[in-house]
């Protein structure tokens, strides 16, 4: 009966009871009913766009890699023929490489004796077997070993015919001189040697080492990191692993008619704590200086929420029990109940975490030498997913929790951020560089959603410390001593 009365009382209490609704609520409902197009259409599909970006970069890399392979294969064929040809054909033009048939024709014309025939067959053997072949221009002085294997087949000598092509057809030693020397084997050799010296402009190199150096100097057409005489071509694919302490700048502004006092109060309850980010990036070199990077990174912004409530009252009920013996001899138990009230303040502290997983798409320009490099970077950071955990003040100045599942204030995807940075790289090992990269990340959109009564945004300044591993350090080798 008592319960029924109680239930009835509760029900009736709420029958016509109205609670005040916050000022900006109607605006928010209207906003939600008539959503405006914000920015460009693609702004909304962050996840899809991120994946599209990564797919585009991977496809472009594969196409470029394949293209490089094709170029190197075609250049090998040119390379294997031209050095010897130029020794004998003064009018050779770098852009009109003669075929092997033409070459044979020339050789048979110029060298009737056995000596020259053997040189020709050496070249032919070298071409057919694709094995390292020694083309002795001169037995003593010009012994350059040239790899023409299928594996090691790129352009080291590519520039050679072009350089040779620069030689004037009307040199001191011309076709006529060569023709005149045809009669004697020794004279022919001397003439041939002199022709070679003039043609490839290596007259000052008299030993193998010097010749190799000379050949090295001819490599002015390599575009993707030039090889040295004894070292492979520079790598073009790197893996960067980094971690950064971050400093954040928070911006809060009014979204739906809440008063400024609330924003100030909210802001005063939250203070910055050291944040961090970590991740990895794959970078591909284009040309000598440009790198495109992409990967994945995790960022965490830390904040301390500290809320102090004044005039907190704590009441303690104290019951004192004592016995008293009356004059009549009766013993009575007396219970005194007293209430103690303490007035003070209460501080509630929570550590808020704003986490995100992002895909960086960055272009860098680097310069310097192998030991020390500097670079500038710019790009975008596409957010894949964001989640938050912690507490903040609500419009009625009460701390409320927000978390991955229940939080409705924050977005699950915070969109695009703009990235810019400056990096310094120091060689730390054969295939490792250490780098430091101060950077700034500007987030274009808010981390709060449309329903929130305020807009909140973070911009991040950080310093990436990391290691760059050269992934394909042994790419190619052209010369062998």
């Amino acid at each position: 009966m008592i319960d029924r009365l109680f239930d009835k009382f509760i029900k009736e209490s709420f029958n016509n009871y109205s609670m005040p609704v916050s000022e900006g609520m109607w605006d928010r409902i209207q906003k939600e009913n008539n959503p405006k197009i914000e920015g460009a259409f693609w702004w909304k599909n962050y996840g899809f766009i991120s994946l599209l970006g990564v797919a585009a970069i991977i496809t472009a890399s594969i196409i470029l890699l394949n293209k490089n392979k094709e170029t190197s294969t075609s250049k090998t064929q040119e390379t294997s023929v031209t050095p010897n040809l130029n020794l004998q054909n003064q009018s050779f033009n770098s852009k009109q490489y003669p075929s092997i048939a033409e070459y044979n024709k020339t050789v048979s014309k110029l060298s009737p004796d056995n000596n020259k025939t053997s040189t020709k067959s050496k070249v032919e053997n070298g071409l057919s077997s694709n094995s390292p072949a020694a083309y002795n221009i001169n037995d003593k002085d010009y012994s350059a070993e040239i790899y023409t294997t299928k594996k090691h087949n790129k352009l080291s000598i590519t520039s050679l015919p072009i350089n040779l092509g620069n030689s004037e057809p009307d040199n001191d030693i011309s076709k006529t001189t060569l023709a005149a020397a045809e009669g004697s084997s020794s004279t022919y050799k001397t003439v041939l040697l002199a022709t070679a010296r003039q043609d490839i402009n290596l007259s000052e190199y008299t030993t193998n080492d010097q010749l190799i150096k000379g050949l090295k100097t001819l490599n002015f057409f390599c575009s993707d990191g030039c090889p040295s005489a004894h070292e492979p071509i520079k790598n073009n694919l790197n893996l960067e692993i980094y971690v950064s302490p971050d400093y954040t700048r928070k911006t809060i502004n009014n979204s739906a008619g809440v008063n400024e006092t609330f924003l100030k109060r909210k802001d005063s309850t939250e203070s910055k704590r050291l944040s961090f980010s970590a991740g990895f990036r794959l970078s591909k070199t284009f040309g000598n200086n440009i790198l495109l990077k992409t990967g994945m990174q995790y960022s965490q912004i830390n904040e301390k929420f500290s809320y102090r409530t004044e005039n907190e009252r704590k009441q303690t009920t104290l019951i004192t029990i004592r016995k008293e013996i009356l004059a009549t001899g009766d013993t009575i138990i007396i219970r005194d109940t007293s209430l103690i009230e303490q007035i003070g303040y209460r501080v509630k502290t929570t550590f808020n975490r704003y986490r995100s997983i992002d895909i960086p798409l960055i272009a860098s320009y680097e310069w310097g030498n192998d030991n020390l490099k500097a670079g500038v970077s710019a790009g975008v950071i596409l957010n894949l997913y964001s989640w938050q955990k912690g507490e903040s003040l609500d419009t009625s100045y009460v701390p409320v929790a927000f978390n991955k599942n229940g939080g409705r204030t924050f977005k699950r995807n915070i969109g695009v951020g703009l990235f810019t940075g400056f990096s310094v790289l120091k060689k730390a090992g054969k295939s490792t560089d250490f780098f430091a990269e101060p950077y700034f990340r500007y987030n274009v959109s808010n981390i709060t959603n449309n329903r929130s009564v305020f807009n909140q945004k973070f911009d991040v300044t950080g310093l990436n410390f990391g290691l760059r591993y050269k992934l394909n350090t042994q790419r190619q080798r052209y010369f062998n001593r």
Partner: protein
Amino acid sequence: MLYKAYAGKMMTICLRYSKDKMEAEDIFQEGFIRIFQYIHQFKFEGSFEGWLRRIIVNTALKNVSKKRISFAEVNDLDDHSGGLPPYAYSNLGAEDILKLIHQLPEGYRIVFNLHIIEGFTHEEIAKILKIQPATSRSQLVKARKMLQNQINELQKIAV
């Protein structure tokens, strides 16, 4: 205007089902968006306020189901009150009761609201919340008792 006429009452419902004001505002906002979305479906049969109420309650329940609340038993209820005499709560206002309802554990609060205020039977509550009718019953008894205890305490302090 529809919003002005019913906003206060609907907010009260939202507050009864939520644990704080922010959550209540979320339910309220979502509820009113749905109201405007489906207003053309109202067939002018029965009370309009009842229709609004139903949408708001459904939105609140949808929000509850997302949270996967546990209908745990709270064992610290001292059974010394034995119900409250009517004079004990006659001077309590709706706002005071709302505060006390907020202090109830989530499972208690939902069942209490659905049964006492909305008038659902335990079988209906069991279907809505996907629990056993017996659980609903026990949650209600305990919610009621806890609420009565709280009112009792309040009375003591007032005295």
